[in-house]
């Protein structure tokens, strides 16, 4: 009997299986004409099946369609273009897939603009394609400040959020409000390392100090010991840079650790309302984070969120709202330029002041293409304060657009 030997062979084989499993790619069905056709094609490129699916995913296509509907309703017969299509592709959070898909969308599907693209490495890959092909690209889903920094280009715009904005909101404001002594826990990959750097800068600028940082493997399901270690230094607040399932693991185990009762707060670097929805407000109660937009902000956002709820069955995250706004502002620019020529549209967009359902006191900065707007510091409500489904956030502070994002002088962008 050679069970043991076959088992060894088996483990070699399964390693191979694991390596190849991540590589499959499904293509979208062909559609759209070539670029000179008398139509506009908006392409959504994001994670349609993985960890960021609920944050943005297929529901962003619904949001973009809503923007198209609103544009057509507003201009009716005066619209400069009648035929507007939306197409989508899954980049599986892989930069190489994003790269290929972006070329396909621009070249074969006649996309005039690519929207969304979460995962920083994938986002930067698409920016390079936009630059080479001289086609528009508005990023909503990724956090890297490189898009409007060293790697900025004429055709790339960055919406919604970035790591600087998150660190500035949560790091500075929480520090200024009295939690001066921090411990940071972060996943040991590019995003986590970026966030720790941004947070450390923001905390120190606010007069606080980072007592220690702890790197964790990614992904990971066991944080109990890391949390005990961070708590042993007796900080006033622990900042976590984890996202998705790792964040949920960490929060569950933080709640178990007893640190909350000791008065050690938890601040989260990047969080979406879909995270709170999946774990429930009890688990996140009191957690502080920076939000680019909240569906229940006011009448205007709520009205849009109601329409979105009707279409999808869920309330929107700020990524959904950002995709809507980006598509709408693009179509407005097409309308005033009277063409889908990318250079003409860039000229329309640059320096434009905008106020829509998503962008409050918004401006599309000409210098680095950062789209700035008011952002919010939010605290997760306790279960008793929740009045309806998805009513999870209390906005504790509005950070004005000019202060919310990295100043142009620091961006290092030259177009």
């Amino acid at each position, binding site marked *: *009997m*050679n*069970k*043991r*030997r*076959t*088992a060894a*062979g*088996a*483990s070699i*084989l*399964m390693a191979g*299986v694991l390596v190849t*499993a991540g590589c499959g790619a499904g293509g979208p069905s062909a559609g759209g004409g070539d670029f000179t056709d008398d139509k506009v094609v908006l392409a959504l490129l994001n994670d349609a*099946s*993985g*960890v*960021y*699916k*609920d*944050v943005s995913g297929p529901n962003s296509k619904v949001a973009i369609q809503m923007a198209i509907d609103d544009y057509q309703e507003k201009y009716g017969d005066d619209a400069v273009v009648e035929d507007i299509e939306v197409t989508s592709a899954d980049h599986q959070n892989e930069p190489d897939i994003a790269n290929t898909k972006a070329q396909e969308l621009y070249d074969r599907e006649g996309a005039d603009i690519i929207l969304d693209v979460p995962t920083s490495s994938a986002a930067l890959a698409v920016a390079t394609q936009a630059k080479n092909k001289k086609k528009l690209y508005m990023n909503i889903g990724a956090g890297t400040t490189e898009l409007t920094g060293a790697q900025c280009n004429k055709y790339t715009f960055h919406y919604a959020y970035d790591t600087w904005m998150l660190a500035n909101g949560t790091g500075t404001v929480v520090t200024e409000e009295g939690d001066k002594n921090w411990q940071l826990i972060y996943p*040991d990959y590019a995003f986590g390392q970026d966030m720790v750097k941004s947070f450390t800068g923001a905390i120190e600028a606010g007069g606080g100090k980072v007592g220690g940082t*702890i*790197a*964790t*493997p990614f*992904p*990971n*399901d*066991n944080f*109990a*010991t*890391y949390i*005990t*270690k961070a708590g*042993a230094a007796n900080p006033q607040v622990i900042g976590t840079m984890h996202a*998705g*399932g*790792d*964040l*949920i*693991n960490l929060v*569950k*185990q933080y709640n*178990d*650790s*007893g640190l909350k009762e000791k008065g050690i707060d938890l601040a989260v670097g990047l969080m979406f309302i*879909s*995270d709170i*929805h*999946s*774990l*429930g407000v*009890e*688990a996140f109660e009191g957690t502080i984070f920076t939000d680019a937009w909240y569906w229940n902000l006011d009448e205007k956002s709520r009205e849009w969120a109601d329409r979105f709820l009707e279409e999808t069955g869920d309330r929107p995250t700020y990524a959904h709202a950002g995709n809507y706004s980006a598509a709408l502002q693009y179509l407005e620019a097409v309308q005033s330029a009277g063409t889908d020529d990318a250079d003409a549209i860039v000229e329309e967009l640059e320096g434009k002041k905008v106020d829509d359902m998503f962008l409050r006191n918004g401006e599309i900065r000409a210098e680095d293409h950062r789209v700035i707007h008011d952002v919010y510091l939010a605290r997760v409500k306790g279960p008793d304060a929740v009045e309806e489904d998805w009513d999870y956030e209390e906005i504790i502070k509005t950070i004005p657009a000019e202060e919310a994002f990295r100043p142009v002088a620091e961006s290092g962008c030259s177009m």
Partner: protein
Amino acid sequence: MNAVLQYTVQGLAAGSFYALAALGLAVIFGVLGVVNFAHGAFYMLGAVAAAVLLDTVGMSLWLALIVVPLLMLVFGMLVERLLVQWLLPLDPLYNLLLTFGLTLLLVDLVKRRYGVSGLPYERPDVLSGRIQVAGVGLPIYQLFVIGVALLVCLGVWLLMTRTRVGMIVRAATERPELAGALGINVGRWVTPVFGFGVALAGLAGVLAAPFRAITAEMGSDFIIILFAVVVIGGLGSIVGAVAGGFLVGLVEAFGQAYAPTFAQVLIFVLMAVVVLARPAGLFGREEATA
């Protein structure tokens, strides 16, 4: 000293999940010779089932600890009857591929039905909070997990050593040809044993539900560590699976405490050392022909 106590409890709690699931993996490998790649997915299904039952019919954790493993037992037996058994006469690689495919399928089905952000779970109040031991607050839930895991492992050990069924299963595990030659119908026990192994993975999943993120992917990395556990303990060895599970949990916790960046690497370093020193694992039997 206080910190060491805390790390030990955390390590044993993490080890409890590994021990329970690895026990199932070991039993299945022992009797069927199948490396069950789908074990991580079964662990995930256990947690998802507990969350769904809580959400839809309000089933408490206490009841779920009994009901979900029973459901998983039936599910496991169906998987064995409908799929696994047809490939048993062939090279074990076929069943490895089958169970790997099954993992992809189950993970995608759960994603499709329940999304990717995970499901909420609320545990009974009794199990929340901490008790003070030697000046340290130890989470009650972690102690509960350790207790359940130890009880179940003890139960399985008694079942294996003190009952006729256990004797047959052990004989079938360790000397299948000899057991067959002595007139024991080994085949009869294959289906229930597979179901039993799956039920243990499901039980680990239920225990994980209040403590970990309940997502379709939760088993994907778990299974990798689990393979390390059974290799360290000795493939097919029941005691080895349990000891390996707790050992790996402790290595993980102390690694996190004293060498955070290397916490997961340490597990595989341990595995490499064990394989070099004792190729059959800590509790595996060396075979003269191997």
